[in-house]
């Protein structure tokens, strides 16, 4: 029994240390205010600790963790970690790191992305932000790999449609940083 516990501890420690920052980054990109990411990270690792036998070995562990975090974010479920001093400390660190989170500038890309449904949006974000492969997406989204590929393809197509509907011009060299109001004003003024 002692050996089992020790082996579990070693494995969890390695899992935590290998994935803490990527998971925190994943959560930070999806929470507002940013310090909420502390709860998501804590709850995700708590699930992993309690279900260590279910966590895949090797590189597959990260998408599994993202999948858990995604469900936590989706459910808006918060456990008792919010009241934990441990998370308070991490939250405090994040507040220090992001003292005044500015409202994200509305961009054409952002607006187009927001017009997609959440599943499509997340597939695109997981690919572009977290660098996941379609096989990884399947783990995160709990869908077959073939379905992940086809949905990703569909999501890209829908994004393309929304971008074009918003007047997106591929000739612009600086992508994604043009305020949508500015962009649409420019189009209306015939500046395209």
């Amino acid at each position: 029994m002692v050996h089992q516990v020790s082996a579990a501890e070693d494995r969890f420690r390695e899992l935590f240390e290998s994935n803490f920052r990527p998971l925190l980054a994943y959560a930070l990109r999806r929470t507002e205010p940013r310090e909420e990411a502390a709860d998501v990270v804590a709850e995700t690792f708590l699930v992993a600790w309690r279900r260590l036998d279910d966590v895949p070995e090797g590189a597959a562990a990260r998408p599994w963790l993202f999948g858990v975090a995604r469900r936590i974010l989706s459910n808006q479920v918060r456990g008792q970690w919010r009241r934990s001093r441990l998370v308070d400390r991490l939250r405090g660190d994040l507040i220090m790191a992001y003292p005044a989170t500015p409202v994200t500038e509305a961009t054409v890309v952002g607006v187009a992305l927001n017009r997609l449904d959440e599943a499509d949006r997340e597939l695109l974000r997981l690919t572009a932000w977290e660098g996941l492969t379609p096989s990884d997406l399947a783990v995160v989204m709990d869908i077959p790999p073939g379905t992940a590929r086809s949905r990703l393809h569909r999501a890209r197509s829908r994004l393309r449609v929304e971008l074009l509907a918003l007047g997106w011009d591929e000739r612009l060299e600086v992508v994604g940083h043009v305020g949508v109001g500015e962009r649409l004003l420019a189009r209306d003024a015939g500046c395209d």
Partner: protein
Amino acid sequence: MDEDTLDRLVASIWPVADADVAHLDLAASEADLLEGIMSTDAIERPPLVAMRARLVPRLISIAAAVAVLVGVLSYRSAQPGHPAYSAELIAVADAAPRLLVDAPGWSVSRADELSGSNGEMTFTDRTHELELHWAPTAASPSLAQDRGASADRTATVSVLGHPGTLFRYAGTTSYTTIWSDETHTLEARGDFETEAAYRTVLDHIKSVDSEAWLSAMPPSVIKPAATTAAVNEMLKDVPQPEGFHVTVPSATVHDRYQLGAAVTGQVACRWIGDWVAADAIGDHAAAARAADAMATSHHWAILQEMKRDGAFPRVLWEYADAMTAGGMVMGGKPLTVAESYKASLGCD
């Protein structure tokens, strides 16, 4: 616009860069969190409320076939002081393990979602609680393996003559014992000052006959005459489809949580069914009517009351929200409302 370009566009708007996160000075809080998590019970021990959330929809869906004990504790007084339980109820009791803690001061404080094959009861002496769960025997190996993974002590014990395994959760005074009889796997869990104190209570678990077992149920779950009034009270702020009438569970008196789930579940199932049907034929007005009705569920008093005790309201609200937000339920595996609502809410 090729796929790489699209991915690059999405990447260009990420709100927090990996490099920024990598450079955050979080070493201390990171270490604290790691140690904090590892100092917790490594086993998934869902609180009772979570178990209720899982069990209630299932039980509602098979309510017609399964006599939920709490719901069928309606007895007919054949003779004053000698309740004659319904045949349905006796059948449930006969199939259940029928265990009590037979020690001074101990009584049943709670009995939920009991059927012959599954159930949970809580016994208390007002200082300690012993939770008793049972399930079909097939659950035994995985349950024992699960408990063993986080125990720092195990011991072989005998419960009512059946060999069992006692586990102490690592670093705690929380004990649990798993054993099996001919048809069930049982677990008795509680926090006690010492293992000896826990074992003493285990030793007082006693098997009784159906009448003794039913008679031991707390009075709060025996409300045979109040069901209709309770249902009407629960529905006072719940909009119902035109011409729809809630079916009051027959011969039942659930505890309020179960009754509330049965009642609101019926209404929700009907509204969602209407919404799915309307959506399929493009009847936007009908779909909106159903979605609007379900949107009010966040304010239904009974759900607000029930949310303290279990997750049924949250599940229902997920569907209400999904009806106005694309029809996808995002809790866990993303599912469409249409494909999942019956199983999730126990719709027939």
